């Protein structure tokens, strides 16, 4: 889900930075209004906690695979949406700097795709309305699963939009979308269940730690734990059924697209194709007007271009080595 710098162009990166900064500025204002200096160390440690627990593999029953914890939903259920959002920014920044997960330029996109949806939509539009009339185990499970599924779907949709707006991939929009959404639906379900398990444990041990918990609002749960599990399984089955129908059309769709797009362009000598190729040659060849001696071939032109690049890089590298050598010599002398 983390986007790399290579997948976006500067214009998209800047737009997403502006959107994420606006959300961050609003969150900073909200957290400052609360004036709880204690919250800052808690945010820091919770960020480190999310970071560390995302490395645990949870076995998914009945399958050979494993899942991970959903950070945004867990943080906002404990710290609230605003502090949770700011903590997620920290997590994403450290992930990108220390572990190359995501990129500095794509940070704005990643904050939006993961932190904004996870914290703002997950906490304000899902967690809060569900917990309005008191908390219960069942409600926590429903809110966590729904929250993770919906926010991951939104995140995956944004990744698709941002990549396509950057013009990076030749994949048609629909094909890309049908590949991204179902995968993230499955991931969302598993992440939701793991997050639910942790939050239910906290609810039973120290409920006051959860965001929006008020003792006087608590009443007997309307749904028992077992009933909720049954309801959730039925919903999961229905979603899975729908998904398989959707997914079964996917390979055909892809094949169709490949055939449609590539079949007709197979080395045809149509005028505009040649024109486009010539434009690209201009862009890729380093010496468009020059070539090997006695050769006018495109191969020669571009070859000299690439040789040129490599020579320039080699000259710079040699200069750096020389610089280092003389610097060392000087420091030894002094």
């Amino acid at each position, binding site marked *: 889900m983390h986007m790399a710098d*290579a997948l976006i*162009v500067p214009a998209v990166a800047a737009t997403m930075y502006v959107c994420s900064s606006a959300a961050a500025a609003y969150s900073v204002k909200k957290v400052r209004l609360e004036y709880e200096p204690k919250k*800052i160390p*808690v945010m820091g440690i919770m960020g480190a906690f999310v970071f560390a627990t995302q490395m645990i593999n949870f*076995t*998914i029953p009945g399958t050979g695979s494993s899942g991970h914890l959903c950070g945004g939903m867990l943080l906002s259920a404990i710290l609230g949406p605003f502090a949770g959002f700011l903590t997620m920014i920290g997590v994403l920044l450290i992930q990108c700097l220390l572990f*190359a997960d995501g990129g500095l330029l794509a940070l704005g996109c990643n904050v939006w795709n993961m932190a904004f949806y996870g914290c703002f939509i997950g906490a304000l539009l899902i967690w809060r309305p569900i917990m309005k009339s008191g908390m219960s185990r069942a409600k926590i499970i429903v809110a966590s699963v729904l929250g993770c599924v919906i926010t991951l779907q939104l995140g995956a949709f944004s990744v698709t939009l941002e990549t396509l707006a950057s013009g990076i991939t030749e994949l048609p929009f629909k094909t890309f979308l049908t590949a991204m959404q179902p995968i993230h639906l499955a991931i969302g379900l598993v992440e939701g269940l793991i997050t639910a398990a942790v939050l239910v444990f906290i609810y039973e041990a120290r409920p006051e730690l959860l965001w929006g918990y008020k003792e006087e609002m608590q009443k007997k749960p309307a749904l028992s734990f077992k009933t909720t599990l049954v309801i959730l399984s039925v919903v999961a089955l229905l979603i899975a059924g729908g998904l398989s129908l959707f997914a079964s059309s996917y390979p055909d769709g892809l094949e169709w697209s490949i055939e449609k797009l590539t079949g007709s362009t197979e080395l045809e000598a149509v005028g505009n194709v040649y024109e486009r190729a010539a434009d690209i040659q201009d862009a890729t060849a380093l010496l468009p007007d020059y070539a090997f001696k006695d050769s006018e071939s495109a191969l020669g032109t571009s070859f000299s*271009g690439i040789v040129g690049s490599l020579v320039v*890089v080699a000259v*710079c590298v040699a200069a750096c080595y020389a610089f280092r050598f003389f610097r060392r010599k000087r420091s030894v002398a002094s």
Partner: protein
Amino acid sequence: MSRLDNAIHELNHIEDVAGRDQWVNNIHPLVKLALTIIYIIIVVSFGKYNLSGLIGMAVYPAAVFILAELSFKDSLKRLKVVLPFVCIVGIFNPFFDRIPIYNIGSFTVTTGMISMLTLVIKGVFSVLASYLLIAITTIEEICFALRLIHVPSIIVTQVMLMYRYISMLIGEVERITKAYSLRAPGQKGIHFKVWGSLVGQLLLRSMDKAEAVYESMCLRGFNGNFYYSEKHKFVMSDIIYFAVWLIILLVFRFVPIVRAFGYIFG
């Protein structure tokens, strides 16, 4: 859990290299942060077929690797996180974009292949640039630079705290999972029955720790802000370093300098 061991090892390694007393490490952090961002922007701004221009951008990572005396090998494992997704996105380009441009023997190079290669190179360069930033600048210095560009103190402070506690919490997670795996041999991950209690216990302990940390910070006079020493002031060499790199990067981006070299040597 080799993943956790790797993470701890990586953190220690980065801290070791970033804390060295090299002249590149001592350049003002804001200069290094700004150059990294400018470099990444320039790299991703290349058109998807502009392969030759992009290759020239190798000059920055190559030079910094040598000047900072860093091992290129250490940076390679970071590529494995980013490259798979970039490759998945780019792998379809050769199938959809099949306009032939060159023939090398019987092999036809198409526009899709060029655009895929460009995408992968962009991925590699941007990851290397971020690695170089973190390998010659400590997190504290990066946080200092972020404060200079007016990133709110609440974000910067919690990033610093988070960084300080990551190795501790990763260590704790490692002990917990090791203890669990010793009691549940042959099991791949954590069984779903203990999902809640295993992580929940750690969460409760972390919250208590946060409280203790906060109290001890208060005892030492913490009032919600961090104060930085006056160690970092802009000096002439910082400005020269920035200006020289900016000129080099802009020249490589906008002047077809490599073409001339290609003509001389090709």
